[in-house]
């Protein structure tokens, strides 16, 4: 089966610019997660969708980060405006059910803010 697709793979932007990441989960997976992984740290959950509804966005910096999952399939994560500390790998993962047995990560987008 096809995996979780993410794009772009890499992005370099200047601080205060905007950036958007895209994720296409595995077909049929109802639950989609966005994680931020800063170098040397484990992934931190930013937002979790169940179909097109938000389950948990408690750790999403809502003043600058936004995410949507229209139609309950693809999702986009946006940062506007970016800060230096947003430099990280942004991972998307999907699972068949909420907190299902095992889930699949995409290859991630490495963001560098200069």
């Amino acid at each position, binding site marked *: 089966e096809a995996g979780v697709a993410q794009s772009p793979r890499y992005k370099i932007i200047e601080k205060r610019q905007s950036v958007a990441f895209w994720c296409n989960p595995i077909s049929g997976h109802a639950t989609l997660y966005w994680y931020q992984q800063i170098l040397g*740290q484990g992934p*931190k959950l930013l937002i979790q969708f169940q179909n097109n509804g938000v389950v948990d966005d408690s750790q999403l910096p809502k003043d600058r980060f936004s995410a949507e999952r229209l139609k309950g399939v693809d999702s986009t994560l946006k940062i506007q405006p970016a800060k230096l500390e947003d430099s990280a790998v942004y991972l998307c993962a999907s699972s068949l059910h909420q*907190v299902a047995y*095992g889930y699949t*990560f995409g290859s991630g987008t490495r963001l560098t803010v200069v």
Partner: protein
Amino acid sequence: EDKVVQSPLSLVVHEGDTVTLNCSYEVTNFRSLLWYKQEKKAPTFLFMLTSSGIEKKSGRLSSILDKKELFSILNITATQTGDSAIYLCAVAGRNQFYFGTGTSLTVIP
């Protein structure tokens, strides 16, 4: 507060050595514990553990869960340079996964 703690943070061994990585957790409504290997890309799935005392094995890797003492170990025997990676432990609670910071393993030829 739910948390997952991994130890050691980093480890350097020689090829052929055996290593044990630790993961302890405090997560309400525990559902499962997962181990991932992360190289330069996204984490790849190794094991999922839900029951205490049942060892899971895949080649030179094995893992076991102790739900009474709230920890899991990941063993790698006869290590190879290809085992060099960050090993992540994640625990599924009621609504989300909680990750540890990972253990960085370096295997020297």
